[in-house]
């Protein structure tokens, strides 16, 4: 692990918070590729064979990270991307460029550690290219301050080339959201497959916006996008799922489940399906409402109270 000189304390603080929240000690493991960013500084970098990581901080504070993975590289241990902010207020702006070659297998685990901030705007823009026949998994987990002063924006644009597979999991279920705006726009080429999953638990006056777009441009490409939002108290949640069937035999399915608990909750979902090729097929499922009565009553008939049953169901949905 290459800890940048002068930033040892920040590195250790972030890693300690991560380890406390996840019981995972990968960030100190020299065999694990890692990028650790604190505020507008890269405080730790570790690369592995077949992978190049370059970072640059512009004068205006923008942190730019380029990740390149060579063709035919298999990275057996997940690559960790850890971004944190240890000041009380501020702004963190990050720009990631991923260029993933052909025949690559890699899994990224991204953690956003924003547990100590009172007011923060965290903006992360990513461009990702996934080469032919590659298999990429990206898991993104957030830990925010419980006072709700965090505003996270993640904007991702991707191209998944022929026969490649991409899966993403975006989870913000363990701590308070604050405000979050997730945008993911993916272009799929011939035989490419994607599976997008996002799960968010809103409390108090959290604001949640999700927009996922799948552009099925290649023949026989396919994608599934599933969003689950549990909105409580006075949470506002708005989910847009879009799928465009632009090629023969392209198949897309979008699903949005928003579960509400609380009289001041405001939630909405808009599915957009557009077929531009007669052989393409798109489907969607959406539900907005309370926890299903038959689920509650099933658990209550086994002795759980209504609140215990609701918690049990929601824990499952957000697991």
């Amino acid at each position, binding site marked *: 692990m290459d800890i940048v000189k002068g930033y040892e304390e920040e590195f250790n603080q972030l890693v300690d918070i991560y380890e406390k929240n996840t019981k995972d000690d990968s960030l100190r493991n020299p065999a694990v590729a890692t990028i650790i960013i604190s505020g507008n500084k890269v405080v730790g970098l570790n690369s592995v064979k077949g992978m190049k990581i370059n970072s640059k901080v512009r004068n205006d504070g923008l942190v730019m990270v380029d990740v390149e993975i060579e063709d035919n590289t298999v990275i057996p241990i997940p690559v960790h991307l850890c971004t944190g902010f240890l000041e009380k207020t501020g702004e963190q702006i990050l720009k990631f460029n991923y260029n993933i070659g052909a025949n690559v297998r890699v899994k990224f685990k991204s953690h956003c550690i924003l547990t100590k901030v009172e007011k923060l705007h965290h903006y992360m823009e990513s461009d990702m290219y996934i080469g032919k026949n590659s298999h990429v998994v990206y898991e993104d987990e957030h830990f925010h301050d419980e006072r709700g002063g965090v505003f996270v924006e993640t904007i991702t644009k991707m191209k998944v080339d022929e026969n490649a597979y991409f899966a993403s999991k975006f989870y913000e279920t363990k701590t308070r959201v604050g405000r979050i705006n997730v945008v993911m726009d993916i272009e799929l080429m011939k035989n490419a497959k994607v599976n997008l999953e996002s799960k968010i638990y809103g409390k108090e006056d959290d604001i949640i916006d999700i927009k996922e777009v799948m552009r099925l441009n290649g023949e026989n490409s396919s994608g599934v996008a599933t969003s689950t939002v549990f909105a409580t108290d006075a949470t506002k949640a708005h989910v847009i799922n879009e799928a465009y069937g632009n090629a023969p035999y392209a198949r897309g399915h979008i699903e949005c489940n928003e579960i509400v608990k609380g009289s001041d909750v405001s939630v909405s979902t808009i599915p957009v399906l557009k077929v531009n090729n007669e052989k393409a097929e798109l489907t969607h499922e959406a539900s907005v409402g309370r926890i*299903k009565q038959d689920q509650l009553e099933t658990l*209550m008939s*086994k002795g*759980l109270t209504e609140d215990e049953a609701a918690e*049990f169901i929601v824990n*499952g949905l957000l*697991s």
Partner: protein
Amino acid sequence: MLVLENINYSKNSNNIIKGISMKFEEGKVYGIVGNNGVGKSTIGYIIMGLGDYKVNEGRILLNNEDITELSITDRAKKGIALLWQEPARFEGITVKNYLSLNRKIPLKELEEALNLVNLEPDKYLNRLVDKKLSGGERKKVELASCILLKPKYLIMDEPDSGIDIMSLDMIVGVMDYLKKQGTTLIVITHRKEIARQCEYSYLICAGKVFLEGDSDKIIEYYEKTCDTCGHINYAEED
């Protein structure tokens, strides 16, 4: 003893259950028999106290205590359980967690319950109780869950529905096992093979108890008359 006393239940101005009275003694196996649509499942839901099944008239007594106004949870805590005809699905919840339900149950007990319903523990404990389970698998998991509740009274709503014909022996075996454990079984069915396991049965027609008595006699009548009747308002006209 569990007693239904002159129960009336209506929904949207339709009288579904009309003055039904029943008794269920501890440790016995009872059948509630009748064609589809006569109100058999409704009786089960009324006993369990489901939200849409509050009675308009009558009382439910458990060991002389009036439980008519008790919640589902309170009835469950008093030992009443329901094997659902079509059990709900739960995303993200494993069979192991579903069977445990926040209780500390030794793994061995969970495995025994799954073995009783012919599900291999190694294959099923970590499966999710979601749409990926077949109807039959889901029903068997529900049956295992009921076994682990160790209820005093178990309402079994069409225990064989959704389960392949080869599993009928398993259901009969589980009924036997539960009876030996001291559970009173209230079996809602229109399948004769299941009804034959009952000691005493109620034949329901159009929301009324049309006949009651020894199960063999009730089945005989049901086979001769109800099977071909298709006339769910018979009792009302009678």
